[in-house]
């Protein structure tokens, strides 16, 4: 019954390919977004139509029909938000997923997936007794002094002297790396592996950038850059 009603309601607009259209099928409600209209215009239209329907669609699950249009992730989120406000739920269709995949495929060469992790930059020296934790990558433009503690779920890069305690990949990321202009930490942890500076190397100065990473379940330090 309800499906017929919906069809009736929007019969007029169905003919017009310039407008956003709701269509009722047995599987549920489908939102057809025209191919050749600007996205912002579509959004305005959608808001207007939802306003007109006055809560008629409340609780319905909506699938998107995009045609040749390619939606950006942000655009998809925008539509979902508007629908949510009107009490509708947006279902991710295979169609939509394909479009998103296509999008990420297109950008794969330029932006590798792992670098999309959030990164924060700290422009000062971290001193004894200070602790920095971040869910993502950490870049410190300054020194990390003995007695300071740096924890990140991603990589840690210190553009200065690293002499404190560092923990990269804190949530278990074995691929995390620690890079410093001068890598002289008290203790290095990557994921679940802990190592400390060898006693005989204490005080010895290494004046070139080095990188620590996990190899064979052990932390190794190697020259980098």
């Amino acid at each position: 019954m309800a499906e017929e009603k919906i069809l009736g309601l929007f019969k007029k607009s169905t003919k017009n390919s310039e407008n956003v259209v709701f269509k009722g099928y047995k599987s549920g409600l489908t939102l057809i977004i025209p191919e050749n209209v600007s996205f912002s215009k579509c959004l305005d239209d959608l808001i207007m139509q939802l306003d007109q329907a006055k809560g008629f669609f409340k609780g319905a699950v909506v699938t998107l029909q995009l045609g040749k249009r390619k939606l950006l992730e942000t655009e998809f989120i925008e539509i979902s938000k508007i629908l949510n406000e009107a009490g509708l739920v947006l279902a991710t269709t295979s169609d939509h997923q394909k479009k998103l995949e296509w999008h990420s495929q297109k950008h794969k060469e330029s932006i590798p997936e792992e670098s999309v992790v959030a990164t924060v930059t700290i422009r000062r020296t971290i001193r004894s007794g200070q602790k920095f934790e971040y869910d993502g990558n950490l870049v410190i433009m300054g020194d990390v002094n003995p007695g300071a503690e740096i924890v990140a779920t991603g990589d840690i890069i210190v553009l200065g002297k690293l002499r404190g305690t560092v923990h990269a990949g804190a949530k278990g990321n074995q691929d995390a790396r620690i890079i410093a202009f001068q890598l002289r930490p008290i203790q290095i942890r990557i994921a679940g592996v802990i190592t400390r500076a060898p006693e005989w190397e204490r005080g010895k100065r290494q004046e070139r950038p080095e990188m620590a990473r996990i190899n064979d379940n052990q932390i190794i330090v190697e020259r980098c850059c």
Partner: protein
Amino acid sequence: MAGTVVVVTSGKGGVGKTTTCANIGTGLAIRGRRVLLIDADIGLRNLDVVMGLENRIVFDLVNVAEKTCRVKQALIKDKRFETLYLLPAAQTREKDAISQERMIEICAELKQEFDYIFIDCPAGIEQGFKNAVAGADQAILVTTPDLSAVRDADRIVGLLQARESRIDPRLVVNRVRPAMVRKGEMMAVEDVNDILAVDLLGIVPDDETIITSTNKGEPAVMDTYSRAGEAYRNIVARFEGESVPFMSLDYDLGLFGKIKKMIAK
């Protein structure tokens, strides 16, 4: 014109805060500045002994904070210098006997009367430290060339810089033993400041005369023959904005050693 409040702090105990405080204060008084030394180490007062004024104490900082006496009543005039005063700490009370607010008020009041107010900070980073730092405009950081003292000093730098009105302290490296530094058995001043990365105000060599002068209650800065005294006089000059070169730490090499060093170069 209102004076400057300078806190002398270190984090670690026994590195020479009180001695530094007494010597810089006395050095400035020799130059005719109006100087007040406040001992904020309540319960463990020392500054009065180092200054040789312990027998003159009637009122103390806690009395002033609790308003059981007027500020002026608690000030002790130095026996040698007209412009030098001491506000001693209470020995029978504890650190929480004063509050940060009262400390700020007292500093603000006394600033009007003096060019410089030096606050001798207790060791640690707890209430006593917070009180001592509360009213300060500047800070002198004292450390010895030990890893532990430097790490504690680094903690203090962090705390001072994180303050609402940030203070960048100036560093005094105390008890440097040049012979040990040359042998690589002691951190060099450069190594210390490599970690702390703050303005270097002075280097004080380890000097036995400090022990006798401290026990006698006569700050070494008055002793023209003392190495440490000379270092403190240089610090005082630098504190007043003069550019004084850091003194050579080669004095204990002897003639033979100096020739050897020249050849080595």
